[in-house]
């Protein structure tokens, strides 16, 4: 069995283990320094790239080497093997250290561009499994690192990683105090954070279109609350006139053709849906209670939402036409922010228990739930497109920041620092 076919065979097992909460308890192969399910991971050695003059190590480490190793470690497909210090790295040395693969990297300059050559060597046979050449401006060196990590995952699993996806969020960082919130985007690992709106007002709840080209959000810029669609680089902003008030919690259907949102007529809030071009707004719920926060199931056939019809905010599911409404959340006295995992099997949501807010995850089939415990308030989860992580907002540090965590509660990473940062929405896999 080749390494590649072995990985494809064990991949579903590894994913299942990651969700049972026992992943950290798995026997780890001694030399793995990152792999959570070490017994299943491929042991790979990644020496620092060979640099051709005049490329300096300092200009490569943070923009390239760190994001590359971070992405490869995140995948859980690979366990990174530490090479012994004091020996020149080579496939033979890596083999001695227990590695199966050796990622040979060389970086040179061609004019103003970096050229990165990557060769993946099987240390058993000495043959190159993958050999690719990447070229970019210095500013896009991180993008090459993320592309290499994606290519390695495609080679072994048939699916790209999340390393070229992005996370939209809301931040107060460019303003004094919290009076203004704008929409920002960042790379999957928190790098490359940049602002894409400038309403100088409240802009809230960004949500990606499935093709990754646009973001829909709510802004208070006109003295009313309106939906806007903007390109991911901040250009081509357009207001969507729904004909009703409120226009909060907008969210694209998985096929990108529709946007579900919260609309209000004379104060009666309901779940509405509108075509993505701003036409044909129609109401899906018709209740005198408060309805909020719609989310599409991954196949687009169902919509979850929050309703106060039972007396407290709870999660309900209906089909996408608004019929067959049923309550699904029963644990916790205040539940909101439901989002479906990409495979449709899990729903993550914000769950208030005795006044504390935690991220709760429900198995849709069994309705069993578990909580990702953390200090402070923890709200507004969003799934990574590979289903292997969740981003959410927490005030555990005293300020609202965005964190990434595995669904079993392990491997928590803080992604933001400047200002207060909330309402993360992880993109789908973005077509390049």
């Amino acid at each position: 069995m080749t390494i590649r076919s072995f990985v494809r065979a064990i991949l579903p097992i590894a994913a299942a283990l990651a969700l049972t909460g026992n992943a950290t308890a798995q026997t780890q192969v001694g030399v793995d320094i990152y792999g959570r399910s070490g017994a299943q991971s491929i042991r790979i050695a990644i020496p620092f790239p060979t640099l051709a003059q005049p490329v300096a190590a300092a200009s490569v480490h943070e923009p390239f080497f760190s994001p590359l190793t971070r992405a490869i470690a995140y995948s859980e497909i690979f366990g990174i093997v530490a090479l012994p210090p004091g020996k020149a790295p080579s496939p033979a040395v890596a083999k001695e250290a227990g590695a199966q693969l050796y990622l040979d990297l060389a970086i040179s300059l061609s004019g103003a561009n970096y050229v990165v050559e990557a060769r993946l060597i099987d240390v058993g046979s000495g043959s190159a499994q993958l050999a690719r050449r990447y070229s970019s401006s210095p500013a896009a060196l991180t993008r090459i690192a993320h592309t290499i990590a994606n290519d390695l995952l495609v080679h072994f699993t048939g699916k790209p990683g999340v390393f070229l996806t992005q996370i939209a969020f809301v931040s107060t960082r460019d303003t004094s105090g919290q009076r203004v919130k704008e929409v920002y985007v960042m790379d999957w690992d928190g790098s490359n954070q940049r602002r894409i709106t400038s309403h100088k007002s409240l802009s809230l709840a960004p949500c990606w279109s499935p093709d990754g080209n646009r973001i829909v959000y709510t802004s208070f810029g006109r003295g009313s609350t309106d939906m806007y669609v903007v390109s991911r680089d901040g250009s081509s902003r357009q207001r969507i006139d729904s004909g009703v008030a409120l226009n909060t919690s907008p969210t694209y259907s998985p096929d990108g053709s529709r946007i579900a949102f919260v609309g209000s007529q004379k104060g009666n809030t309901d779940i509405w849906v509108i075509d993505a071009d701003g036409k044909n707004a129609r109401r899906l719920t018709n209740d005198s209670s408060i309805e909020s926060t719609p989310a599409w199931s991954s196949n687009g056939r169902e919509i979850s939402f929050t309703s106060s019809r039972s007396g407290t905010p709870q999660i309900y599911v209906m089909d996408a036409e608004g019929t067959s409404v049923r309550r699904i959340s029963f644990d916790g006295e205040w539940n909101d922010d439901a989002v479906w995992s990409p495979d449709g099997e899990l729903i993550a949501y914000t769950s208030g228990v005795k006044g504390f807010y935690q991220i709760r995850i429900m198995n849709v089939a069994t309705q069993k739930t578990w909580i990702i415990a953390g200090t402070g308030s923890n709200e507004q989860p969003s799934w990574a497109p590979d289903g292997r992580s969740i981003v959410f907002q927490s005030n555990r540090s005293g300020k609202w920041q965005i964190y990434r965590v595995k669904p079993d509660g392990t491997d928590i990473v803080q992604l933001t620092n400047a200002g207060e940062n909330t309402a993360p929405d992880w993109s789908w896999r973005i077509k390049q």
Partner: protein
Amino acid sequence: MKFRMVVVVLVIAVFGAAGCRSRVKPATAPMPPEAAPAQEVPAPVGDFAGVPEPDESIDMSDIDELNRRAQEEGWVRDAFFEYDQFALSANAREALSVSAGWLRKNPGVGLTVEGHCDERGTSQYNLALGERRAWSARQYLESLGIDSSRLRTMSFGEERPFAEGLNEAAWAKNRRAHLVLYKID
């Protein structure tokens, strides 16, 4: 019915102008269609300072200054709510009755009713809750005869707290329908 409402408002106006402490009896106040049974709840409404006589000295040109004075002098009064509720309490109705009286005497201004929530709970749901609070207050003002064309609503959810602090005193201040005057062109 309409006539009775006018009488109620005039009574408030007269007693207010005389500087008396006064209460609107819930039994005589018109009930909006969605209001829950009146209940006494402590809410920071402030003293009943009364409604001024029509006053030519009120300067409509500086709307920010007018709003500052209107709140300070109690010409318009915010309505406060219980946790996760949008029904108007007796105190909230009283505050809105005073506000309606002033609005009636000053037809040149309109009113934006802002719905606000405390920071507990989730921000998306609170935007919807704020919308309901704003409309509870608006519909009560309409039931007191204020023309709908003068009224606007907007929900801020938990985005614009009036008081900071992780205690009931701060939270109570943040659960409100906040009344903001605007000049009708």
